[in-house]
């Protein structure tokens, strides 16, 4: 096993060299200035494979300081292998404090979830993004997607939603639902469930999206309007969990995981593990809940 000491003495603070960090910060600033616009960046090599959160790690390590408190969640869980590995790595390379508590953290890196608890203006949520190009499903050529973004030509994206509705009678996208940011760019919110999409709009915190493999950063600054794409007569809906309660905490009104037992039974638990721990042991933390249209 590699000793922590070796890392601390031989490697740069936050692993990435200072000039690369500076470049990433500069690109991050640009992304914040143009909400929803994908900014290309260098995406240096990291000690994890591309597609395992390198984009998120670049953002985290370029922003984190010694006084920060770091939290990482993987699909709602603080305890997944990926989350544990990255947490240990960040701790080792920065020496900063790490936490499971959403409210305590100043930088939260997340894969595929926005925490249930409302984030504050003192917090940054860094999301790991596998495919930042929202138009890739309808247009395979990069030069065309760039042109489509430049000219705000999003008809193909809309047609794909129309086709999904006509074919299946519902909005079929379970995750990565396309959003319009600041009434200009259409972007992907990373593969978060529809449940989380309304939380992106007019939020207190800064959302940063890093796609290491695709070398792109985009951002949703605080208090920015984010609208899921919806038709006038077919409205956006979040997942329904009618009559379902968390089997561990007994609570409802949160995004649930469905778990199957060995004997064929099934139960639901709140997906956000820290939120579940909190509702189990004390008062319910503040939450933004979206009501589906009738």
């Amino acid at each position, binding site marked *: 096993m590699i000793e922590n000491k070796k890392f601390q003495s031989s490697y740069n603070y936050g692993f990435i060299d200072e000039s690369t960090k500076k470049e990433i910060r500069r690109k991050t600033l640009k992304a914040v200035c143009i909400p929803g616009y994908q900014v290309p960046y260098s995406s240096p090599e990291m000690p994890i494979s591309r597609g395992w959160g390198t984009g998120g790690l670049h953002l985290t390590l370029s922003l984190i300081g010694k006084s920060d408190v770091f939290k990482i969640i993987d699909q709602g869980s603080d305890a997944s292998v990926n989350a544990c590995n990255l947490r240990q790595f960040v701790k080792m390379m920065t020496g900063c404090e790490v936490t499971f508590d959403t409210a305590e953290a100043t930088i939260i890196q997340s894969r595929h979830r926005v925490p249930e608890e409302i984030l504050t203006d003192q917090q940054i949520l860094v999301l790991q993004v596998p495919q930042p190009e929202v138009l890739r499903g309808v247009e395979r050529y990069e030069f065309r997607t760039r042109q489509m973004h430049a000219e705000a030509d999003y008809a193909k994206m809309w*047609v794909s939603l129309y086709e999904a509705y*006509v074919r299946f009678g519902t909005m079929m996208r379970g995750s990565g639902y396309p959003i319009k940011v600041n009434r200009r760019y259409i972007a992907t919110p990373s593969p978060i469930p529809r449940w989380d999409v309304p939380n992106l709009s007019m939020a207190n915190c800064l959302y940063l999206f890093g796609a290491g493999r695709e070398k792109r950063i985009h951002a949703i600054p605080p208090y920015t309007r984010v609208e899921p794409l919806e038709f006038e007569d077919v409205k956006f809906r979040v997942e329904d969990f009618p009559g379902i309660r968390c089997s561990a905490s007994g609570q409802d009104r949160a995004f649930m995981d469905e778990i199957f037992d060995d004997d064929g039974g099934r139960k639901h638990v709140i997906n956000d593990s820290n939120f579940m721990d909190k509702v189990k042991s004390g008062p319910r933390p503040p939450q933004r809940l979206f009501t589906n249209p009738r």
Partner: protein
Amino acid sequence: MNHHENEIGWLLRVRNLTKVYGDPVASTLTRTGPKYDSNICPDSGAIVAINNIEFDLYPGEVLGIVGESGSGKSTLVQLLFFDQEATAGQVYFRNIDEGRTNLLTLSNQRKRYVKNHLMGMVYQNPRDGLNFSFSSGGNIAEKLLMAGTFHVGQIRGRATYLLTQTEVPVQRMDEAPGSFSGGMQQRVQISKAIANNPPLVFMDEVTSGLDVSVQAKVLDLIRRLQHELGISMIVVSHDLGVIRMLTDRTIVLKHGHIVEHGLTDQILQDPQHAYTQLLVSSLL
């Protein structure tokens, strides 16, 4: 030249429209054309697709553009529909700034607006005009969505109406056009082109790939829709039969130049230019 008049009669005004491929030199435009029987510049090798084209199109009028392969017919409509960028020239459209603004100087976003709201295009190859990964209804929806209709019920209602008008079975609206016959694909393309009731539609060799009986049906349909909706059209064809059936006025192109321009009947009955005479005699 003052292109703008107090009371505009025309819908589209084209002036000095020129398209050159390659690197032209000073002599390129003067040393090509019917007089030299070539549109390739002997000095630079540049190809003059169209040279100094001028015409007006009036509301409700159907203008034919005829000429042999390589005469510049398709390039001309592609320039007017912004599929290609012109080398020089001015294009004015009555619905944009009352005909005061040269459309070729507009931003790409504004050009897209003009294309989506005010123009329609039917290509020779349905694959150029339709997206085969979408359904037929989806293709029509694309045009409506581009123009700002975001109501699924209204989109489907309009698509149903258009497919009925163009005699495409409505129950096949949610099928991809790849499963349709060539004639049906062309009819879906026509539905898409007229989806927003544009005042101007371009038709580029719409019946070229179709057999004679299907050709006749498509031509009947175009004539009926033009008559009912009063759309102005620019019809490109190398087939004088199509030109005779559809158009009021005709421009004859050769090596990128207009060699004759007049009422279709007059051109077909009494062609003045030797090239037109050759075209007409080959028809008869």
